[in-house]
């Protein structure tokens, strides 16, 4: 019994240690952001007065209102497109047999692991030739393309996990394939779909390289790109840069905290795309 108690204590200690390690850098940044703009810091210092003025300063000078709006628009578009395309595609891969299904599926799997870093050069020149750089399309379309790989894989796994009898029952009950999908399977799949939505949202919101390459004008920048620019301009102003970083992180962290069960499940269930 005491051995078990010991072990339990060690477990908690280890978990606590790792939690602290995980959180410290975040707390350090939060703390720095509470100092007034332009303050020169040495390591971890408690601010003399508590004020959120730095956030306001970073928000205004960095133009984060506009940046956030861009990011939100792009993320929403990618999420909607991905969901609309992946549900039927996953349904097809998961429940039907059609010629070429296996090779197409393997190509999609490859799409899950190949990162933007490998694709960015051809992507950029294609979009430049199409005159689409410096538009939201340059962000939405490639991101949707890569998300579809994961989304289809994920929804296929979901549709495979649903007992085949359920779809059979609906078909015998007189439902068309379309009705089986939207009336019977999709309502059951809400948790799986939500997982896909939050993961795709996070990936899109956090994507940096694509925005860096595709976007050079002010109006279409996304939040991470804005943060990077802000940092190179105000690098020495630690409180303001920290505040900007916090601002960029907040939406994703909120979504994460609200839906963390789905986050973890999605990442743990073997999503290969990181």
């Amino acid at each position: 019994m005491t051995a078990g108690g010991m072990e339990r204590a060690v477990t908690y200690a280890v978990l606590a240690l790792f939690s602290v390690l995980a959180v410290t850098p975040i707390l350090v940044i939060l703390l720095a952001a509470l100092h007034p703009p332009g303050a020169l810091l040495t390591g971890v210092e408690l601010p003399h007065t508590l004020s959120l003025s730095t956030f306001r300063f970073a928000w205004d000078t960095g133009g984060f209102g506009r940046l956030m709006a861009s990011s939100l628009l792009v993320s929403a578009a990618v999420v909607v497109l991905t969901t609309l395309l992946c549900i039927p595609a996953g349904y097809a891969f998961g429940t039907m047999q059609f010629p070429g299904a296996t090779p197409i599926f393997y190509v999609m799997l490859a799409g899950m692991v190949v990162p933007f870093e490998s694709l960015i050069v051809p992507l950029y020149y294609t979009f430049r030739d199409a005159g689409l750089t410096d538009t939201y399309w340059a962000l939405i379309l490639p991101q949707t393309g890569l998300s579809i790989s994961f989304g289809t894989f994920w929804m296929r796994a979901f549709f495979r996990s649903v007992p085949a009898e359920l779809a059979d029952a609906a078909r015998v009950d007189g439902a068309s394939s379309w009705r089986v999908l939207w009336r019977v399977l999709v309502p059951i799949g809400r948790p799986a779909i939500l997982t896909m939505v939050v993961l795709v949202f996070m990936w899109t919101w956090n994507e940096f390289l694509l925005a860096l390459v595709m976007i050079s004008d002010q109006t279409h920048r996304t939040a991470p790109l804005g943060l990077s620019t802000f940092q190179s301009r105000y690098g020495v102003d630690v409180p303001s840069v920290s505040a900007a970083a916090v601002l960029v992180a907040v939406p994703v962290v909120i979504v994460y905290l609200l839906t963390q069960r789905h986050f973890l499940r999605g990442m743990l269930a073997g999503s290969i795309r990181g």
Partner: protein
Amino acid sequence: MTSIGFERVVKRFGHVTAVDGLTLDIAGGEFMVLVGPSGCGKTTALRLLAGLEAVTEGRITIGEREVQGLPPRRRDVAMVFQDYALYPQMSVYRNLAFGLESRKVPRAEVRAQVEQAAKRLGLDELLDRKPRELSGGQRQRVALGRALVRHPQAFLMDEPLSNLDAKLRVDMRAEIAALQRETGVTTLFVTHDQVEAMTMGDRIAVMRAGVLEQVDTPDRVYAQPANVFVAGFIGSPAMAFCDFTAQRQGDRFSLDNGLLRLEVAAADLPETVTAGLRPEHVRPWSGDGAMAGPFDGVVESVEVLGRETFLGLRAGDGVRLTARLEGSARHELGERLQFGVQRGTAHLFDASSGAAIAHAV
């Protein structure tokens, strides 16, 4: 009332032939049970009828219509699944209504139908519940209700009772049989349980390895099995088989294998035959003239069920029989026992083909 016909139906999955030339006619209003060991193709046959699988060859008719090209929703059949397949996110009401709504039945009509079916099955109190809030028996009723409410041409049932506990299963057997008689809807019921088959079916169809072995009323399948397989499959404990050399003696034949000797009346027999003996015709020797014997055996197993007792007997190499005794008889494992076989009860089969030659001889 709608008749159903399978005509030389073949279904192959790749190189595997699941259903091999099935021809079966189900009369309008009949309760047909399709029974066989797992993997015999009975569920595939049902799914072919429902339209959930496409036939490879042959014709399937529902009423006058040839249906093998039609999707399930155009066949107007209702199906009850092994795991019920209730829609988990829908209430009982919506589960029952789904099929009617899929067929664009007017709303008021749907409500009337659902309420009528719910009442018949005692589900009226449960209409707002979700499937996960129901017991196994209640789920089973909802699954039945979903079929009932549609007033289909045929009920297809795929081992619907296999997930229920033993007592509930007996109740639902009676209930399903009663429902079917009431509605008169032609029914194809698939099961691997020969007791279910015997108790429920107007006729039963026995399948093995994709091939239909026999179709007949339950008592005829039991009393006159078409071959060794059917004889061994129907009846529990199973019929015992042993091979004999047959010798004509006047108008009778004497069967001998060195351990047992039977005399049977038959017109003609091949040199070697397989004889099948049911447990109820093998008993400890009592000197009764209606019995052939006595034979020597060793008790190998004892199954005391209270009302009756089954003894596994070994009468030398390879000859094993089961004997049925009234009440709970006391016998020890390894005990030597003299037993007899009731005259005029043997089933004879061709030793090589397994086909039946004579019954009750």
